[in-house]
């Protein structure tokens, strides 16, 4: 064996564990999934599956609930990407200022991220159902007292966005903090001497300097809000119901929840799988486009 072949063997031996794991748990299931999405698979052992071509995909696009779910998911993603990024950038700017307690603040804002989505959903359910009405009682505002946030479709979506922002902003804040600490101090000082105020400095120095962080944070928030599941399950169970055209639909049944319901509530596994594949394709395209666009905006020092 010469050195070259030896090196090759060693290379593949080292790669093998990771590669095998990747093939077994990602690649193979993915292609099996594509196959199952074109069958009438029901996940019951011993039941025959037959190949039915693209019927599941046709069914999906004629389903109003699915189209509505797509729409709501885009809406939710758009607003939560904006809200998480604004909140976390503000928090990051606050905790990078000179302050005695800034480490405590950093830890404090990060803590909601350590709480699981289900627990957090129930906490916010309690806030919306009990705290808000009793605040109305205390401050004598009847409108607030009788407000049923989780019965109104758009308010509920806003509620989910709030809960998600509360959970995720602390985590994204950490990325911004790291980026902010890397902004060269000499540039900041120079601008101060030149008489730039806070807004000028933010717009012309800080934001361009932390553009790589925007790429990462936008990607993370986009992907995570698109896939949102556990907060919704705990906070709204997909409800409240509303009318879309003349069809009854669930207003916060976002795609992940919708796919789960099709597969497990209605027991239509293969259809759920077909929807999951479309979900994957759309998410890949949207997130790749976002990364490509953001990358172009980054500046090199």
């Amino acid at each position, binding site marked *: 064996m010469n050195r070259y072949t*030896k090196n090759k063997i060693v290379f593949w031996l080292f790669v093998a564990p990771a590669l095998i794991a990747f093939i077994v748990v990602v690649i193979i299931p993915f292609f099996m999934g594509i196959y199952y999405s074109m069958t009438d698979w029901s996940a*019951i*052992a011993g039941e025959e599956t037959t190949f039915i071509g693209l019927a599941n995909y046709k069914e999906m696009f004629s389903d109003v609930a699915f189209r509505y779910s797509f729409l709501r998911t885009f809406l939710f993603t758009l607003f939560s990407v904006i809200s998480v990024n604004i909140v976390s950038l503000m928090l990051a700017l606050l905790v990078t200022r000179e302050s005695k307690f800034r480490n405590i603040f950093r830890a404090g804002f990060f803590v909601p991220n350590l709480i699981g989505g289900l627990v957090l959903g129930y906490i916010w359910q309690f806030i919306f*159902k009990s705290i808000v009405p009793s605040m109305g009682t205390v401050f004598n505002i009847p409108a607030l007292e009788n407000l*049923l946030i989780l019965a109104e479709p758009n308010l509920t979506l806003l509620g989910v966005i709030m809960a998600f922002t509360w959970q995720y902003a602390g985590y994204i804040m950490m990325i911004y903090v790291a980026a902010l600490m890397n902004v060269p101090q000499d540039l900041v000082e120079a601008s101060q001497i030149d008489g730039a105020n806070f807004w000028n400095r933010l717009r012309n120095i800080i934001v361009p300097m932390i553009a790589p962080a925007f790429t990462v944070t936008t990607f993370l928030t986009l992907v995570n809000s698109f896939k949102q599941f556990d907060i919704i399950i705990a906070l709204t*169970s997909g409800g*409240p119901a*509303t009318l879309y055209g003349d069809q009854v639909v669930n207003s916060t049944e976002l795609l992940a929840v919708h796919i789960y319901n099709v597969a497990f509530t209605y027991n239509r596994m293969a259809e759920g799988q077909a929807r999951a594949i479309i979900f994957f394709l759309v998410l890949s395209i949207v997130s790749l486009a976002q990364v490509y666009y953001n990358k172009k905006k980054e500046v090199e020092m």
Partner: protein
Amino acid sequence: MSKTRVIAVLIAMVLVFTIFSGCAKEEKSVVIYQNKVEINEQLTAFAAVYEAETGVKVIVKTAGGDTPYAENLKAEFQSDRQPEIFVVEGMGGYNTWKSKLAPYEGDEWIDLTALEFVVDGKVYGFPVAVEAWGMAYNVELLEKAGVDPATLTSQDAYAAAFAKIDGMKDELGIDSAVAMAAGPDMAWVTGLHNFNGYLSAGLELGDTAILDKLNKGEADVDRLTEYADWVELLFMYADEAVLLTGNYDAQVGQFATQKSVFIHQGNWIDPWLMDYLTDETMFDMAYAPHASVKGEHDAIFIGAPSFYVLNNESENLDEARAFLNYMATNAAGHNYMVNEAKMIPAFTNVTLIPNSPLSANVVKWLAKGKAGSYTWLQNDMPDGFGMGTIAPVYEIYAKGDITKAEFIAQLVDKIEALK
């Protein structure tokens, strides 16, 4: 790296894979995979008693809730950890699992119950317990309001009683006449239980005519119209917050704190009530007849919510059947079902009476025989129809987004889509 070392590494990898795939053989035992989290401990304790008595080991595995149970059961079968006994909840579950089921034949318990699960003359399911739901009322409050529960036998009587109670809210100290929930968390109350009023109220026990029509995609519009009056009545006299966004705790809590006279729930709320109420705050309660459609009524919905079924691929079927038979026919089994698990057994040879308030009342309804019960058919609809498809219709009707006519039209639409 030498050749021997490469070989050594390869051998090591092979060994690791063997460890992963290797698996010890289990002894002869019965695995029961069930879905009632609340009786897991009691059932395990009973299984230990059974093992001490007979020497057969019974392993109790539990997965909670309805949907996760179905998923986990599929996973158990896919992974070859097949249980001997598992749970189905009616025709829906039967259709999913029929290729896996073995019938019971000649078991002693079959003669002791009227609630076994039968398909085509073969007994497939052992009734886990008897449950019932309907309009439970607070005896004292109803008396205070001057309504005699014996008169509550028709929609008109209910309408009059609700109106009277509604006018006495301050005197009775209540928020609303009925504790009813139709929010997203409570899809099972509306889409399954309440809708069962359409499927079986007023019909003879075991009559599935309306259900059969539904499964064929045909709606009985006249009956739906009568039924919609009942839904309207319940929604009109419910507390708005509990109705629209309330969860289980909110609904049962309203009744438990005596903020409502009636509650539309089953005897499964007993543990909740007994947990919350002390000896001093406990109050008398009972069920009134359920008047979901027009006509005179003197029955509530009584049935077995779930059945133990046998896996036909199991090698220990005889042991599994012996275990269930022991539960139904032996004093230790009766004690487990009534006193430990707080269930109402479906067997006529059981003389113990539950000590929880609503269950004790259900036993009285059960004693009326066929005349006191309407059939449970809500689990025999297609998967997802009750909770997924029609529950949101109830919700928007409760919110007032649609009129009663539109509510009926929506239900007809959804039923016809089942074709």
